[in-house]
């Protein structure tokens, strides 16, 4: 198939950036979206033009490195990661607009590459159980109901790609933050730091400049791992019961 690509090009963080149009021909529908961009980049490189920079790594939909806002949806028209999006989702003659994630907390570094270290800092604010290596109880010491373990797993599946932020009209990171808060709030291992975790992670999320949640549900609809907004409700509960009852003034 033949396609027209409108791609955001931006030299670096301080450059203003603009869309640039490219024509690309003979794309097979078995290609992944990123392979289609590889083809474009090979052509650009051969012509001596700077290839389009985009983040990608595992190309199996699990590392969370790929992003891209494709034709108005994060990760494109399917509820999957961009690396798992295949060209059979497009038609011959389509115009495809490709933009970087847009959020104050995700500054553009170059072309379609953004800086998502704000997510790391949210995790650093409390997305862990404070146990040192060694000296922990036997793994089967505390039974965990299967349903709880499964719920925790559902939340833990987050790949930290940022599609939730990209999709949200408020650029809110509630789904991301709540997935980690939920996972650890559900498990017995997370109980000890439950309150301080909720307070600190929410505070960090705000400090990074993410927007507030208005419950549109766009994040859940676009999340490649199908993380549910029930996690956001759970985080809200966790946060308020923490601020009302914790010892931190």
């Amino acid at each position, binding site marked *: 198939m033949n396609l027209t690509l409108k791609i955001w090009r931006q030299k*670096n963080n301080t450059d203003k950036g603009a869309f640039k149009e490219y024509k690309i021909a003979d794309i097979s529908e*078995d*290609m*992944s979206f*990123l*392979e289609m961009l*590889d083809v474009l980049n*090979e052509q650009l*490189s*051969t012509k*001596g033009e*700077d*290839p389009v*920079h985009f*983040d*990608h*790594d*595992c*190309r*199996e*939909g*699990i*590392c*969370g*490195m790929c992003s891209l806002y494709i034709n108005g949806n994060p990760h494109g028209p*399917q509820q999957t990661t961009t690396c*798992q999006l*295949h060209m059979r989702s497009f038609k011959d003659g389509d115009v495809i607009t490709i933009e970087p994630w847009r959020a104050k907390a995700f500054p553009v*570094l170059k072309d379609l590459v953004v800086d998502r*270290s704000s997510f*790391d800092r949210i*995790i*650093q604010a409390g*997305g*862990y*159980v*404070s*146990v040192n*290596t*060694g000296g*922990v*109880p036997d*793994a*089967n010491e505390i*039974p*965990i109901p*299967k349903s709880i*373990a*499964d719920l*925790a*797993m559902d939340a*833990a*599946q987050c*790949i*930290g790609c940022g599609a939730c932020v990209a999709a949200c009209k408020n650029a809110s990171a509630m789904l991301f933050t709540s997935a980690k808060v939920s*996972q*650890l709030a559900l*498990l017995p*291992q*997370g109980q000890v730091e439950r309150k301080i975790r909720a307070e600190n992670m929410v505070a960090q999320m705000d400090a990074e400049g993410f927007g507030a949640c208005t419950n549109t549900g766009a994040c859940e609809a676009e999340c490649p791992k199908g993380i549910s907004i029930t996690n956001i409700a759970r985080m809200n509960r966790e946060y308020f019961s923490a601020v009302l009852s914790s010892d931190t003034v």
Partner: protein
Amino acid sequence: MILDSKIPEGPLAEKWTNHKFNVKLVNPANKRKYDVIVVGTGLAGASAAASLAELGYNVKAFCFQDSPRRAHSIAAQGGINAAKNYQNDGDSVYRLFYDTIKGGDYRAREGNVYRLAQVSVNIIDQCVAQGVPFAREYGGLLANRSFGGAQVSRTFYAKGQTGQQLLLGAYSALSRQVANGKVKLYPRTEMMDVVMVDGKARGIVTRNLITGAIESHSAHAVLLCTGGYGNVFFLSTNAMGSNVTAAWRAHKKGAYFANPSFTQIHPTCIPVSGDHQSKLTLMSESLRNDGRVWVPATVETAEKLRKGQIKVNDIKEEDRDYYLERKYPSFGNLVPRDVASRNAKYVCDEGRGVNETGEAVFLDFRDAIKRDGEATIKAKYGNLFDMYQQITGDNPYQVPMMIYPAVHYTMGGLWVDYNLMTTIPGLYALGEANFSDHGANRLGASALMQGLADGYFVAPYTIGDYLAQNPIERILTDHPEFKKAEKEVSDRIQKLLSIKGDKTVDFYHKKLGKIMWDYCGMARTADGLTKAKAMIKELKKEFWTNVNVLGANEELNQSLEKANRVADFIELGELMVDDALNRNESCGGHFREEYQTPEGEALRDDENFAFVSAWKYLGEGLEEELNKEPLVFENVKLTQRSYK
């Protein structure tokens, strides 16, 4: 040089315990005076960085990805082995040790492997304590599944995303230490060289991938946790960024490279669909628990199928050849990876392959769905089935999956002793980056185990031993050795940028990959390898005269990043060929067609090849020097592996 593996004295089961007692310790007040560099933040790197920081060392952690959480450990699906014997099915530390040694076709060290089996149980405890949501039974206790190469259920899993959950566990421990100020993170930073002062590793030179800045970092010890080098084949299941650069630069600075030709070809990957393919996707081996592998019994049927004249579901039971079940009645579809892969190649070479390219076999869930119901199969493998459908467009609930082997893991790596130290003092290699535990073939669900064993439970002890014997004084990065290394790195980058040839980096990478797959892949011959060596030499020359690397150093420049990595892959490729050519036997993932049993199984030569080949770099353009570390087996009897 005599390679001293430093395996502790004493009975197998007591070696590690004795060693832990005998190692020197750094007192708590002094720990904060030592700096440790950890390169790579996968399972090995993140767990080591976190554990060392918990002990009190100052850690600097580097990764080329935008976040430590993205390391390729995340892609491991099936599970992690541990000798917990929770299932009461006869597992034990000794059995896990034995399975691993046997699975590795007797080319691994007994001492290392036994220790791995011992600490495997601690890993599960540690991960559960971190909040890793492993699968559980209705009673609330941990669930297990079985895996290739083992007859017990000892694999712990978290849906089909075990690697992800374990990595996020290690990442959370790492994040906690970042918050504590004990770890400084350097994401989007690639290690370009090791810096040696007085014969010891004392730091690294890095390139900031955003700004291009070449920077030096000094420390008392350097840990390379940089994963495997499967991308030398261009097409592999590794992440696009996975590379050998850190290990290769260390090798050129004096670290021996061990068993480079030992690569694992994973049997259950999605077949190649065309020239555009950028990487291959693995599907968990756990699928072989319920899926049955088959091809049409005759070439004629296969041809009809390939031409679309018949549909797969129309092929009658008697016209199907469940070749693994036929050849290996006791292990059936659960034979180890190398055996499963090689047999897929055989049937495809016979002309019985089932997709358009003729390079695919079926993995069929029809009978499992009939037996357990679609809901049960969906619960077990739902995400894998979805992934398969996403990529191929076929629905595996209705038609069998098509699979073909693909490069997946490299057992070879930097040579390390029992302490995980390379031949460069102060330079360690952990996880897939080292060669130590899997011999010539790794069992499923053992990579995660080894990465975390090295990082959580081995390195924190053994590094203390080294540091305690070394002075506290820091070396500043204005030391001439750092300046020299920085200059070498800059010069090389400038060289790459100045060639301005007319072929892209990927062009060369694909070419290298093809040579490696054709001649140094699933089956190798002396002739082919000799040919490959000449081709790689030629390719290297061409690369350095005709590659076109665009842009400048002082920017985010992905073609420069790739060029740096591919340049190293080319050199590694040559060494892999040397190693494969030298090893005149077949073992595990290394299959030399000249050396096979009448039934077509790998034929080891224990008399002449029960050693680790450790290659020493002698200089640009020179042949590398082979050193041999003999493998001594005091506890297991070497037998011809049989899974019949």
